[in-house]
């Protein structure tokens, strides 16, 4: 018999994990849907945000909020530097999408290796993160969990609002739909790409810091969340932000609920299984339109 309380507890943690993945997915989705680059170095951005916060708040002993700001600033800067230093010159040389992916791949391994050399392979953590545990009957949820859910969806909501209501947001949407036409009507496509890289990197910084408050940092910490973010984007349909959020949420919920039947180590198999089945039967994604 399935234990009802276990199911409820897994549901709660599924919502937490799902919110985390939703934010990561949206942060990658906005970049991928606009630039069409398979931006694997996003994992490096995620990692560097966490290490920046640890350096400031743990190693230098500064207050936590300064660490958070440092992490977000570093993430945004890393995204901007990748765009200006690598992607933009490659685009100018009309590099193929595969070439840009390979450069991104190279960068992701450079970042994780550099972190290992500088900080060592061991786990590092933020200290002094306030946290309370609440009991709802026998089900537990922490204040950090609640913060993760609230901040994650708030960030996604604000992004959607930004895309729909502001001039820059509409310019991003124009570039996403058709870069040539956008260029023809006077949108500076390169500036939009830079903006999008900064927004996506900022968002993944938020996701990274929320994760770090309850967990630890290590050099390859970015790989799994970013990979799940990728999968979520392809599940949700590669050209819509709500789809990416939904994809991430579904994946988080599924990995957590799979704990009813499977040991926790096998959660990633569930993610892969979902990807495999969706790609076979619904290649355009769950919310995507069928390609002609």
């Amino acid at each position, binding site marked *: 018999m399935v234990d009802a309380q276990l199911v409820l507890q897994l549901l709660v943690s599924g919502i937490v994990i799902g919110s985390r993945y939703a934010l990561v997915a949206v942060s990658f989705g906005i970049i991928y849907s606009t630039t069409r680059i*398979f931006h694997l170095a996003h994992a490096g951005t995620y990692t560097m945000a966490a290490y920046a916060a640890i350096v400031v708040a743990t190693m230098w002993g500064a207050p936590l909020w300064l660490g958070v700001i440092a992490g977000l600033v570093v993430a945004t800067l890393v995204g901007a530097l990748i765009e200006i230093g*690598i992607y933009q*010159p*490659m685009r100018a*040389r009309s*590099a*193929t*999408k*595969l*070439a*840009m*992916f*390979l*450069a991104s*791949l*190279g*960068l*992701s*391994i*450079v970042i*994780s*290796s*550099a972190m*290992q*050399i500088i900080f060592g392979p061991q786990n590092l953590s933020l200290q002094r993160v306030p946290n309370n545990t609440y009991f709802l009957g026998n089900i537990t949820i922490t204040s950090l969990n609640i913060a993760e859910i609230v901040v994650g969806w708030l960030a996604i909501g604000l992004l959607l609002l930004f895309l729909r209501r502001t001039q820059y947001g509409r310019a991003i949407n124009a570039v996403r739909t058709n870069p040539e036409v956008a260029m023809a009507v006077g949108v500076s496509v390169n500036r939009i790409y830079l903006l999008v890289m900064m927004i996506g990197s900022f968002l993944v910084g938020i996701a990274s810091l929320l994760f770090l408050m309850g967990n630890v940092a290590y050099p390859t910490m970015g*790989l*799994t969340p970013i*990979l799940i973010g*990728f*999968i979520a984007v*392809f599940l949700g349909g590669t050209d819509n932000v709500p789809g990416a959020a939904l994809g991430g949420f579904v994946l988080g919920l599924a990995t957590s609920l799979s704990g009813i039947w499977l*040991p926790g*180590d*096998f959660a*990633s*198999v569930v*993610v*892969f299984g979902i*990807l*495999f089945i969706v*790609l*076979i039967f619904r*290649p355009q994604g769950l919310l995507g339109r069928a390609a*002609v």
Partner: protein
Amino acid sequence: MLNDYTADIAILILIYIALGASLNLLMGYAGQFSMAQAVFYGIGAYATGLLAVNLGWSPAFAIIGAVVVSFVSAGILALPAAKRVSGEYLILLTLAFQVVVNQLMNSMRGLTGGPYGFTVPWLTIGGKDFISPVDYLPIMVGGCLLVLLITWGLGESPFGRVLKGIREDERAVGSLGKNTTVAKLLVFGIASGMAGFIGGLAAYYYQFIAPGTYSLDLSIFVVSIIVLGGIGNLTGTIIGAIILGGLRPFLQNVDFIGDENSYPWQAIIYGLALILLMMFRPEGLLPEGVGISSLWKRRGGAGSARVIPPPAAAAPGGSPLATAPAATPVAARPDEIVRVEDIAKSFGGIYAVNGVNLALRENQITALIGPNGAGKTTIFNLITGTLTPDRGHVYLRGKEITGKPPDEVARMGMARSFQDTRLFRRLTVLQNVAMAVPHQPGENVVSLAVRPIYSRKMEEETRARAMGYLELVGMQDKANEPVANLGYGEQKVVAIARLLATESEVLLLDEPTSGIDPAVLDDMITLVLRLKALGRTICVVEHSLHVVERLADHVVFMEEGTVTAEGTIAELTGQQRLVEVYFGT
């Protein structure tokens, strides 16, 4: 010089060469991509170890088992991607597979020993033990040579030609009657099977298997080797493996780095190499088709030099056309070769084709004319299976072919050309035409392995046939030129030769004269009339009424997705309304 230390490094580099070569078959020839090469290497190692330890299989059988396991798992993995053209799916799928299987190696403690792995007995053959690196080196040399031989042999075979075609233009390969899905699955399976094979050999050498070896880092490393050497260049892969494989032994001996940090330093170097190469020299050290000597030559045109294969032997036994099925006598065939009944297709609620009936009569030229957007090319797409109709039926010689995929339709005897030729630009004219020749044993991997000499002989015949078609269209002098070097008019002619080489009895020509020089227009018209004289049944989409007048036996006039008139060209041009619709007023 050859001691256990150097032999150990040599073995590692041989492993990298083999992993790189097998992945290059996938990336360089077929234009596919895999981020999972390390995990297939690992699957081979685990399968070998588990079969040897748990089931007591002998080394040879354990390794064969490992090859089968990695081949089959790769085939299944590639299933969803093989049906689609988009490369991103393959990246995502293989990346996810790499990470998940690597985690499983960690998690399935009962089977794999978890993060600490398990040990494998050393290799013993006929009472002799192979334990030390020096003793094991010849075995790894043999294994690596075998992988290189298979990769090179497949790459240069007719199967390799199909792979290159898939890389250039997958839909065009399908239109020539080749099943690209099977070819893609096979090449994925073979590349991964070879990685599994090397994994088995490595398991016996290291006598220890643990998940850390088969991580994403190794997959990225193998990709870096190929990219450094040059995608599609096997010599380049060997050089890349030596350079990057020699990094760590070098770094270990650098004072301030030391043994522990040599891994991340190695990763930083090949990661940086990947970034810089992609930014400044995406073709790698040795571009495709360039030999090693170009590295020493001063600016010998590294980008442009190409190895052009020697011309094919002359056709044995007369014209290849004599054996083409459509050239058989015309008698005893029903008149209607192709019959289209009430076919329709809508895009987003708007009908591109709506209720068209059409018949192509034997050995006649039927012309489809009408204003732009009338649905002429859509008709071609519908009857060759590129698009599936919403309703209606297509029959070829009385057999229903509605909804069959393009490659199957082509094999049944109906092939089409494309308005923009869709030739394989980086392949030679002869390779383009040879790709279309049906029934090539060399395209079958099993036949290549079991009957290599026969396959090679048949390949000569294929080339001779292709040469025959080139002579027929007058392009034999350009046989060994890459298509990209040809003028547009010449490309159009080569496209006709390629279409003819499919030996289909029904040929659909999509605007054969569009975009060509008026001076060679007559040649093209003569050529199409010659196809008719060879007994082919032809349908042509054509804009120029002068061309239609000279070619067509029967003309079908289309407007807004429906047929509004048909007859001879004289009958149609006699109707004032049609002329107005056609030319606009």
